[in-house]
């Protein structure tokens, strides 16, 4: 009982709270604006910031580059990054497991299977004009199926340990690889080129017709996830405890699974598999803002968008006029980070 009477209430909690959180969120917002501006201006054809904002004269070529190429691509990169990072943070909270990344545990793979199925076989039953809607829909279905399956596994095992989850992820990813390989075998030459792009991950195919439907889905899904931050915090006590504290756990799980799957599915449908964004970003945000999902989710949105836009910028400019797939850049950053996470988890245990 030594510390029972250490101090009289002093308002210390109020004073020492994470008071610095709002300015930090603001800083993340500023970082996003800066990186978006850089990404719009820098490229094979450089644009001036004055021209972009309409203060300076621009040629028609510059206009076309800005509105038809640069802008949709940057918007896609920002939204896909935001969606993947928010989905990663939400899945980590849902599975109560810091290594739950949509790519590692097979959710992105499920989305890719759905999208590729639609590309290869969709022409048979869907009109060409509706494809921008049906590919994301198929990808979301694939992502939701895998997430649901993972959750069923988690319940079945009782306690879903980190290693078990990653092993299940390996198995699910292997299944996706089989399905994708099968589809590749059945596809024709033009479809095959699209499929290669899928497995590497790239924002290079962004056009407004494909970006807008996916963007709508990502905005709604990410908004829903952010609104569940507090409930996801209480869920960390355990499902039973959360119920005792008035959280409708079944509804929360369903909403989280569907929203995370929608965000991942929509992102994968337009950009392929961009690995590790959903893992790295929430971790960095937790280091900055603390573990509370009320802050981790919005923070992940902002930092996910920033990181993704910058990764795409790097992918575009390192070997001008050619470009790297952005998935390669995020993996090059993410894989060592992942190793570091495993090492630090080991040394703590």
């Amino acid at each position, binding site marked *: 009982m030594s510390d*029972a009477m250490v*101090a009289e209430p002093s308002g210390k*909690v109020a004073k020492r709270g994470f008071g610095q959180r709002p300015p930090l969120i603001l800083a993340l917002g500023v970082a996003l604006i800066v990186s978006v501006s850089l990404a719009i201006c820098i490229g094979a054809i450089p644009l001036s910031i004055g021209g972009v904002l309409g203060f300076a004269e621009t040629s028609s070529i510059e206009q076309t580059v800005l509105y038809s190429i640069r802008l949709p691509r940057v918007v896609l990169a920002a939204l896909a990054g935001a969606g993947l990072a928010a989905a990663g943070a939400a899945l980590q909270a849902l599975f109560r497991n810091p290594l739950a990344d949509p790519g590692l545990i097979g959710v992105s793979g499920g989305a890719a299977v759905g999208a590729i199925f639609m590309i290869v076989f969709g022409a048979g039953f869907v009109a060409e004009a509706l494809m921008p809607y049906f590919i994301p829909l198929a990808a979301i279905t694939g992502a939701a199926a895998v997430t649901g399956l993972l959750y069923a596994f988690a319940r079945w095992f009782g306690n879903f340990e980190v290693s078990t989850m990653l092993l299940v992820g390996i198995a699910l990813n292997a299944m996706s690889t089989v399905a994708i390989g099968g589809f590749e075998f059945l596809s024709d030459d033009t479809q095959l080129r699209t499929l290669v792009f899928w497995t590497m991950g790239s924002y290079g195919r962004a056009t407004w017709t494909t970006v807008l439907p996916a963007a709508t889905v990502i905005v709604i899904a990410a908004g829903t996830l952010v609104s569940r931050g507090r409930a996801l*915090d*209480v869920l960390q*006590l*355990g499902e039973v405890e959360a*119920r005792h504290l*008035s*959280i409708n756990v079944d509804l929360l799980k369903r909403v989280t699974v569907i929203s995370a799957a929608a965000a991942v599915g929509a992102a994968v449908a337009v950009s392929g598999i961009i690995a590790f964004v959903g893992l790295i970003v929430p971790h960095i945000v937790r280091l900055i803002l603390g573990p509370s999902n009320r802050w981790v989710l919005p923070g992940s949105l902002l930092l996910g968008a920033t990181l993704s836009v910058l990764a795409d910028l790097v992918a575009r400019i390192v070997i001008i006029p050619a470009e790297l797939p952005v998935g390669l850049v995020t993996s090059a950053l993410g894989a060592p980070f992942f190793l570091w996470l495993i090492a630090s988890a080991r040394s703590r245990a």
Partner: protein
Amino acid sequence: MIEVRGVSVRRGKRVTLDNVNASVQRGQVVGIVGPNGAGKSTLLHAMAGSLGVAGGEVLVDGQPLNDLSLAEQARTRAVMSQHVDMAFPYPVHEVIAMGWEPFRGLQPLDTNRLERIANDCGVYGLLWRRFDQLSGGERQRVQFARTCLQVDGILTFSDGGVWLLDEPTASLDIGHELLVLRHLREAATRNVGVCLVVHDLEKAARFCDHTILLDRGRVAASGAPREVLSDHTLSEVYDTPITTEWHSGLERLLVHA
């Protein structure tokens, strides 16, 4: 008040509770005792409504538990489970603050209230530590404080409630054990019905008004501690020779095994 009537619970083929009747009145401390695997936690969680019952009914103030919304349930009773692990490095004050969740829509959590509860529960010095780095006993004290905050909320918005605790003192040293048990006694004076699973029979006799002795899923005895905790019943239920002795100097029941 919470009452279970003829409740049975099955886990697979095994019957873990068999036609059990029990109740917790406001202002009363009820202790559930019994050997390992007797169904003590199961009975507590049946009262809490956190597991499906195969038969019988659970009533809260005469109303079936399932008729109440989750929010209404959470504004009537607090539950402390045995183990809570958290995968993320939440600071202790955020963990305790989660106890206010059911009342957040009615009134925002005042940090003075949080500090007062932390002080009362002897966890003030832990408020800024990371929950995942605490020892087992410290975690238990923090979870106790979290449910204590919930009980404080229940008493703020109604005139009484129920507090269910599954071995709240299992990993505590003797000082903190007494702090928790005195706290529960004090809560009972404020019209809270307390029900706890407890292993220490002497503590059960000292702090409870009523004891329920479970044996293999059935109620072996129920009533005032000194009647229930008799040599004969205890020896039979625990399958060990047990003698009890009333120490008139201490005014306490001593249990020798």
